[in-house]
């Protein structure tokens, strides 16, 4: 689930310039040529400092999002309606944690240790996808997450899988394969509620209303406000703009929601036939920034649970530790 594409801070101009000055211009040119030829960059290859920095940020935040994203859904494993739904949800949550591991490994190939990444998550320095700072109040919330948040993440991940960094692409290939199961089981549960009893329909509509704004937030601020970094696009770190991805998501999924007789809480939402772009009420971007900076309903709880797990699992890690093993980074 959960591409972390948007949480990405754009490089601050001064730092970028300073770091670029240190990059060997000949190597930089060869690097950029490789990328424009569509070659993948591998861990041992030369890369610009800023490329490395941005990729670590991106992959690390993606990894954190997978792990934190398992929390609101994990909550519902014990209360999933029926044995099949419970099995599917357990499998899904296991996948998400597995994706976190794959992504931490990919980020590690760039030289940041797993422990450093976890520490940055626990201290609040690293972010994760904003949507997971909202609670899953009912089973219908889990269904909306499983269908629509996963769908949004797939849009993001499929784009990133065509990026330039080899280990990230390989991890995403596997992740996208498993996401397609998540999406399908989410869609299935979604349809079941939408075509069920009046109480089920009401529950689903309520959840949809609650989640619509976080979903619109998912791809990040509109292109006109975020300083769009040409460099990151050129280096194939960032593969599509926020608005492009949001538009693509709406294109595919709004019809799937409406065909089930549900409504979306935005009277302005429509596809402009002339531009073939979606028009919508801008979600509250102040709320977006407030939540990402720690002010959401569940920010505190998510990190506390994560810290609890880290602390209470420590004795197991210590007990298993073989001090003769020296640490190494993954080769690929």
């Amino acid at each position, binding site marked *: 689930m959960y591409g972390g594409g948007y949480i990405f801070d754009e490089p601050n101009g001064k730092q970028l310039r300073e770091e670029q000055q240190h990059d060997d211009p000949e190597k930089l040119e060869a690097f950029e040529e490789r990328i424009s030829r569509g070659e993948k960059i*591998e861990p*041992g*290859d030369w890369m610009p400092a800023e490329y490395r920095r941005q990729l670590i940020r991106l992959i690390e935040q993606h990894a954190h999002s997978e792990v934190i994203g398992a*929390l609101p859904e994990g*909550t519902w494993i*014990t209360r999933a309606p029926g044995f099949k739904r419970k099995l599917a949800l357990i499998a899904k949550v*296991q996948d998400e944690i*597995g994706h976190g*591991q*794959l992504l931490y*490994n990919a980020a*590690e190939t760039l030289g940041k*240790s*797993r*422990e*450093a990444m*976890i*520490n940055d998550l*626990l*201290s609040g320095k690293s972010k994760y996808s904003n949507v997971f700072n909202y*609670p*899953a*109040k009912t089973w219908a919330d889990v269904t909306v997450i499983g269908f629509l948040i996963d769908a949004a993440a797939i849009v993001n991940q499929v784009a990133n899988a065509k990026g330039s960094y080899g280990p990230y692409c*390989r*991890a995403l290939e*596997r992740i996208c394969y*498993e996401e397609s199961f998540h999406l399908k089981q989410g869609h299935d549960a979604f349809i079941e509620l939408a075509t069920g009893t009046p109480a089920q329909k009401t529950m689903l509509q309520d959840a949809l209303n609650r989640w619509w704004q976080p979903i619109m937030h998912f791809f990040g601020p509109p292109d006109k406000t975020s300083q769009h970094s040409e460099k990151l696009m050129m280096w194939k770190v960032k593969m599509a703009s926020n608005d492009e991805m949001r538009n693509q998501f709406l294109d595919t999924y709004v019809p799937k929601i409406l065909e089930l007789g549900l409504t979306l809480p935005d009277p302005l939402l429509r596809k402009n036939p002339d531009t073939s772009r979606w028009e919508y009420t801008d979600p509250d971007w102040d709320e977006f920034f407030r939540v990402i900076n720690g002010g959401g309903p569940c920010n*505190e*709880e998510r*990190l*506390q*649970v994560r*810290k*609890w797990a*880290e*602390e209470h699992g*420590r004795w197991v*890690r*210590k007990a*298993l*530790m*073989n001090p003769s*093993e*020296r*640490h*190494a*980074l*993954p*080769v*690929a």
Partner: protein
Amino acid sequence: MSNESLDPRVNRLKLDDAGTVIRVEEGENWNVYEVFHQEKRGAHHEHVGCVHAPDPQLALVFAKEQFARRKKCVNLWVVRSADILAFDVEDEDMFANNLEKNYRDASGFKVMEKINKFKQSK
């Protein structure tokens, strides 16, 4: 923390205050092992990724969870990443090859042409 979570499990935990600092020590998440996956007997083991584990036995257990929970798998190998010896990527040019290597390839020898020519000449 006054627990007001919607998660019954969270409410049973005694969570520390949000401000509590938890630090993971370097090396606490163990070491990296590369994982090789065999899809069917007789096939090559293929590199599929890596896991963090404290020793090879647990690396196998984690590799099974991570890389063999779907689809077919008949065997797994793990090896410490640190034990892998590889050429430096900078030395890639040493693999550059003369592409005219017909002489060491079956396709470089046209015996039928010669035989036919011989038969026709008779």
